[in-house]
């Protein structure tokens, strides 16, 4: 650190000196404002002996004071109510069933859902009570056999998918 300050040393410190943040020469520390008094004796000495710098500092001070005239409004009385409403909305959006539907967009989950549906349909159709199922084809007929083959093929290939899913299940967050 030089023992004496010249004009260039002081120039960049002007905003801090004008803002009154204490002792800028010894690094800016914390947010502590020590008042407008300039503590560093080297800066003080230079300002006292240099009309250019002291005039410039005064000009910075006036500019900063002018900037003070620009006031900002306080938060409105509705701020908290609106904030609260937005937060509730945010929380609801992450909890409501729509959150589930959004899982459908994830391909892996959509596939596993398809598997579940296919498996369910298969169980109903191979069960003893065909009830009012839309496909009431007699087993043993050519059409019925072909359909059963199709289903079995689907079923077995779906099991492969299920294996894949199990491997991935750590990756996919459980909904």
């Amino acid at each position, binding site marked *: 650190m030089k023992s004496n300050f010249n004009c260039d040393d002081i120039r960049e410190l002007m*905003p801090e000196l004008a803002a009154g943040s204490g002792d800028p020469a010894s690094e800016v520390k914390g*947010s502590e404002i020590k008042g407008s008094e300039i503590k560093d004796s080297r800066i003080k000495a230079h300002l006292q002996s240099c009309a250019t710098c002291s005039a410039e500092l005064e000009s910075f001070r006036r500019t900063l004071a002018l900037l003070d005239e620009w006031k900002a*409004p*306080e938060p409105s009385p509705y701020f908290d109510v609106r904030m*609260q409403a*937005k937060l509730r909305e945010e929380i609801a959006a992450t909890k409501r069933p729509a959150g589930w539907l959004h899982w459908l967009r994830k391909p892996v989950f959509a596939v596993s859902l398809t598997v579940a549906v296919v498996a369910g349909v298969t169980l109903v159709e191979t069960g003893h009570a065909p009830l009012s199922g839309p496909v009431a084809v007699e087993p043993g007929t050519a059409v019925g056999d072909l359909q059963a083959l199709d289903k079995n093929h689907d079923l077995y290939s779906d099991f492969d998918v299920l294996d894949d899913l199990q491997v991935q299940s750590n990756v996919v967050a459980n909904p």
Partner: protein
Amino acid sequence: MAMDRGLLAVSSASLAAEGGNSSSVLTDADIMLRVKAGDESAFSYLVQKYRRAMVHFMYRMAHSPAVAEDLAQEVFLRVYRSRENYEPTAKFTTWLYRIATNLAVNHIRDTRHERQGNMASLDEPDPETGRSLDVADVKPTTEEVIIQRERLAAIRGKVESLPERQKLAVLMHKYQQMDYKQIAEVLKLSESATKSLLFRAYESLREQLKEFV
């Protein structure tokens, strides 16, 4: 105002209860970690603590009280949304101002077209409250009002037209009382780069606002 009283009361009570005598040393980062752990009242506490600063900052970026409130609320929603990823590596306020800065800069870029048409009406009364928020209510004469409006329009216009980073630095330094170190962290600059950024900003404001001082 449930946030004001109910939640906040719960918040300070539980913060005090758990912290005991050392509750006064709980940092914002500690409180944010509670938000992360699911404590909603801790979130309310942070909203109460920083809503004024956020509204002020956003107002000087967006020039509209209504937009400023919306943007400030969006900042807090983003804080809430990213609570699970929060790591107290930086000061909470640094993180908060980074979110605010990104949001404000994007807002300004998105609305640049509208704003250019509106520059002349910067100092018009706020449509929501029907009065200009910047003019003091001391029954000044018409001439004084006109002069004051001119000064304000000049201040806003000159700050507005600073290069983006200079403007952000001035708003944080002059109006948010942040020190160089903090501003440097928010803007991801070195302290010395911040120092010269602020010098250049104030130097051009000084030059351009000469006639008003």
